[in-house]
């Protein structure tokens, strides 16, 4: 039934998919193999995962801690900022939005260097995980703002707020019980993005970290450079276990929004 071009393109797409996914499985397998050079025949084992835990557990806890702190900060800074940007569309707010997105466009290496030359002199800050947190907040804030702003611009914020105000709700009440619940999906997508990016951030963190503030990706780079392949792989496996659920959740959150017009025409009978 299908034209031959279909199968050619399908084969190509499958090949691209293999390029992306095969190494993921190879590294998972390598992390569970007794001796990768000899192959799976040498037996499957959890010894490398245990070894990773012994060597790097601290980096894993630190990364989770920084990611959650980063989430808290970006929520507190980003959601109100997005609200302002949605509420007032002037040249000034557009300029602010443009500026806020800059840390994504500027390479992490440059941002990290800028932070070091400016604040590196403050010993206590330089040697604490707070220094890394600052970098992560700069880098992830635009994603929170963009994600919340996208939802705020798509709903009729004005009417919602006006009706609430008419009913006598104060600004604080309106913001917390009308605005925020209506932007749930944007906040959730932004939150998942922030946590995912913070856990995986390397470019900045590599310059910002100290021997006592290593994060997961810093530990990964360290293990790739100085440990046997199986340990690097097992460590990568642990990283995948943390990040893949987040990425799948992110896909689940963002898919329905993109296909909004579909249910209407595809399934007219279903109740909302």
């Amino acid at each position, binding site marked *: 039934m299908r034209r031959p071009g279909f199968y050619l393109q399908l084969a190509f797409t499958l090949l691209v998919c293999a390029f992306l996914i095969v*190494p993921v499985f190879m590294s998972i397998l390598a992390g569970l193999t007794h001796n990768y050079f000899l192959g799976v025949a040498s037996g499957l084992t959890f010894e490398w995962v245990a070894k990773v835990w012994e060597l790097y557990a601290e980096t894993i806890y630190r990364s989770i801690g920084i990611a959650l702190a980063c989430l808290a900060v970006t929520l507190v800074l980003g959601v109100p900022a997005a609200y302002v940007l949605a509420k007032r569309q002037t040249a000034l707010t557009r300029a602010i939005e443009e500026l806020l997105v800059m840390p994504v*466009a*500027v*390479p992490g290496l440059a941002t990290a260097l800028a932070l070091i030359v400016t604040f590196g002199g403050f010993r206590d800050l330089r040697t604490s995980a707070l220094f890394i947190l600052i970098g992560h907040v700069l880098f992830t804030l635009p994603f929170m*703002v963009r994600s919340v702003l996208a939802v705020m611009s798509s709903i009729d914020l004005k009417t919602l707020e006006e009706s609430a*105000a008419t009913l006598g709700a104060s600004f604080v009440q309106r913001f917390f019980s009308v605005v925020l619940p209506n932007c749930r999906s944007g906040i959730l997508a932004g939150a998942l993005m922030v946590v995912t990016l913070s856990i*995986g951030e390397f470019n900045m963190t590599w310059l910002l970290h100290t021997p006592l503030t290593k994060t997961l990706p810093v530990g990964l780079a360290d293990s790739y450079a100085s440990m046997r392949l199986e340990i690097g792989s097992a460590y990568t496996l642990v990283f995948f276990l943390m990040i893949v659920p987040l990425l799948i959740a992110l896909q689940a959150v963002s898919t329905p929004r993109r296909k909004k017009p579909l249910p209407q025409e595809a399934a007219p009978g279903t109740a909302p």
Partner: protein
Amino acid sequence: MTALTVARPGLRHPATAGAQRRETFTLVAMMAPAAIVFAAFFLLPLVQLFIIGAGGKDGVAAYGRILTDPRYVTSLAVTVALSTNVTVATLIVAGIAGVFLTRHRFPGHALLTSLLTLPLAFPGVVVGFMVIMLAGRQGLIGDIAQRITGEKLVFAYSMAGLFMGYVYFSIPRVILTVMAAAEKLDPKLEEAARTLGAGTWQVVRDVILPGLKPALLSAGAICFATAMGAFGTAFTLATRINVLPMAIYTEFTLQANIAAAAALSFVLGAVTWAALVVARTAAGSSVAAAG
């Protein structure tokens, strides 16, 4: 609802001068925390970076030296060439796969789409490790090549490996952008072209590509900027490859030449930021913020 608004008419017109001033004050107060953090930890440090970059023995001329010192010029040229190649290759690969996935539905379609976008947030270091898995000393490609030609093919630790890593990194993002744009293409245009006797290649060239142009421009710019500034993959694969981020890192750590590192990273930041702004203006949309 209507009854209430009628019952309390005073609240229907809050736009009195006092209320408006209060609202502006509230909005400024809500923007303030983000603005202060951003100014203190991003804008101020960037200014400081520029000043330090001009604080070496050459002064502001240090910025000019980036374009005259052969070491930096080579580094800049290598990075631009690599990023351009990565951008072109990714646009072709992800363009074909993205358009295909949008236009056809088949069993396993959703799974294939998810798998293709899964590596979206893999950090550069992990991408580097994926390249080692494929093209490293114990890599899959090497094994296959050995079975076919009898010779082991290892290219992970070279420019080719870096190229592969950057393409790996960029494919998921570009596929997402292409799919979003391809969904909006009007199938009637293609039908019309076919009715008028256009062949497949003509349809691609005259209907599909022009329709995708804004998306391709914007995705390409993100791809280019990311490849210019990527550090993790290069760091994992080879410290000897002379791409700009590695040059900055070497100046900073090994040479302790902080002024040169600062000048180079300021220029790198300016280039990637400009690339994104130009593309966003050209594409007329704001898809650029995708890390």
